[in-house]
């Protein structure tokens, strides 16, 4: 099969959309990694539960995707804060592995509670299906544009928060040097609450966007965890810009490889790229060298 320019453009579009989708949970991962300093394995399940909250809102009788989204965001933020206050706060100051193991437990707990009450059936959001816009073979899906716009907007708001507001500045200060931040009188309790709320919102948006594009099932968030981890590592651990760039890069690379290696191996290509980046730049594209203490 000959590959035309149009095919490549279509692949590029698919890759960008998939990348932007993964970028949301990657941002949530990298923020926790940078500020609370542990890999949060429950990130995917926050997405799942938020998406189910959105489905729940629609099940009440509304077809409004906006209301569903707001429900998901509220649920995501609440969930994330509850688990912080309940589990992760008690583990602060311990080795990161304690929080990591706890987060795996939180993930299992959250998923099991979900399946206990709603079962294992798949769900979909009630959204009208619209035909793609066709520009001479280049196909653009309105749904995809919507997903991309929401993801971009969320990132814009996140970066505005991190760089333009006092709480964002404090977050970055803690990420840079927790001891120095504390010495400067930054109250980490408040900052961490804000962090977990942000993480919850990011996960909720990621979950909603995934649910709109694909299907909502109890395992989908957990399955997205590995790609999100890979994107975080490529971009550089703890770097929000790196998270977005890493996710889009992996998405585009894997889609563009399809005509060459076929769809079965596109994931392998993404991980090949991960290896390559780590060989050349072990700290990731935008990461800083971490010093083990």
């Amino acid at each position, binding site marked *: 099969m000959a590959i035309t320019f149009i095919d490549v453009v279509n692949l590029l579009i698919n890759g960008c959309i998939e990348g932007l989708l993964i970028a949301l949970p990657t941002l949530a991962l990298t923020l926790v990694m940078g500020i609370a300093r542990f890999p949060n394995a429950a990130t995917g399940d926050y997405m799942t539960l938020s998406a189910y909250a959105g489905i729940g809102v629609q099940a009440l009788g509304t077809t409004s995707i906006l209301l569903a989204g707001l429900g998901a965001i509220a649920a995501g933020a609440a969930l994330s804060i509850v688990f912080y206050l309940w589990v992760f706060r008690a583990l602060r100051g311990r080795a990161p592995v304690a929080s990591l193991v706890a987060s795996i437990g939180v993930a299992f707990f959250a998923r099991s509670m979900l399946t206990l009450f709603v079962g294992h059936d798949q769900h*979909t959001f009630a959204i009208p*299906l619209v035909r793609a816009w066709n520009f001479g073979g280049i196909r653009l899906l309105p749904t995809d544009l919507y997903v991309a716009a929401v993801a971009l907007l969320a990132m814009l708001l996140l970066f505005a928060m991190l760089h333009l507001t006092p709480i964002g500045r404090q977050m970055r200060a803690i990420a840079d040097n927790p001891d120095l931040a504390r010495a400067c009188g930054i109250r980490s309790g408040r900052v961490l609450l804000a962090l977990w709320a942000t993480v919850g919102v990011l996960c909720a948006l990621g979950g909603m966007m995934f649910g709109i594009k694909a299907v909502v099932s109890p395992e989908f968030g957990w399955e997205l965890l590995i790609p999100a981890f890979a994107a975080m590592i490529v971009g550089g651990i703890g770097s929000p810009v790196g998270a977005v760039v890493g996710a889009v890069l992996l998405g585009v690379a894997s889609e563009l490889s399809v005509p060459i290696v076929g769809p079965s191996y596109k994931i392998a290509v993404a991980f090949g790229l991960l290896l390559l980046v780590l060989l050349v730049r072990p700290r990731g594209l935008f990461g800083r060298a971490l010093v083990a203490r």
Partner: protein
Amino acid sequence: MSSPITRRDVLLAGAGLAAASTLPRVAFAQDAGTFRIGTLCPITGAGSPFGSGMQKSIEAIVAEVNAAGGAGGRKLELFNEDSQTKPDAAVLAAKKLIEVNKVQAILGTWSSGVTLAVMPLTEAAGIIEMNCSGAPSISTLDTKDLVWRFQATNDRFGQAFAVIAEKRGYKRPATMAFNNASGIGNAEGFKKAWEKKGGKVVAGVVYEPNRPSYRTELQQVLAQKPDVIVTGSYLPDSTIILREWYQSGQPTQWIMPGWAANPDLVKAVGNEVVEGLISVDSVSNENAQSYKAYGAAYQKAAGKEGSTNVYAAMTWDMVMCLALAMEAAGRGATVAQINAKIRDVANPEGTKVYTFAEGKKLLGEKKKINYEGASSRLDFDQYGDVTPDFGMFVIEKGVLVRRDVISI
């Protein structure tokens, strides 16, 4: 330094001896008393729409067999585990069933990946394995003839797809397959059968599970302008693929296996998208008495009609075959001796029977029986595979309507 032996010591030793001497006897009595069956149905994961029903069906028929006095002088005892439709989880569960519960048969594995992962364990333990999986390789990997398949192989599904595609006059078929033994088996089976008929498959892709989008894969297939796409797929991926295909706006037709194209798919994507889609599934042996018995029991156990779960009819037949084989093998038979009787009680030559009580009575009179199953006629070939009939369902206004029954 010597210490006198007190009365207490003697008593203690005596009690210990007495206790020790009873131990092996207790264990022996347990072995002879029950036949231990492990169930490994897909309660969670991709098979979850069917798994609970499959297990309930097994529980119902086991209760029936036990109520009829058990089989071969033994009661059946169940140990339930969840395969999660995942090979790794299923292997752990199977190990537990074999090593801790000491089961003598494992029933109800559903996805081919799970069955293929569990088979080496059951074979090593020398116990019976009964499944609803389709992967062709299961037939040949079963070297000790301990594996029994109650579902049509994917190869046979592929043949049925090809018959339907030919009947419907399609000329340019393409395939899309979920990357596992079953998905690829369907697509390959179709390709083989179609090329035997002198046709050509214009495109084929194998795609990965758990992706948010399959646009790229669709793009590759649709570029060849197929008039029909034959899939080896499951429900979640089919949902995504159909939605993205519909949105792409390029006309084509679809032939899908019934475990993907079911009422849940219609609910997920809406009537308009699936209008005219062809769903193919093995059909139960609906006119048989055994099917009626199963249907009544399933209604009672699961609160749904028996026709909503073809796999529950298969698991019903699993216990039935096993129990009848135990009865035929007689008291105290080993697993191997029971296994050797399965074809004897299910295959032709012999009086047709439909319930356990009937079979038990005739076997007691030393007559040859032929159990006609609820899921199919249940005649096992040399690989332990069966050949059910296939139903061709067309989705019309959101309802699956059976338009044809295909025998291959």
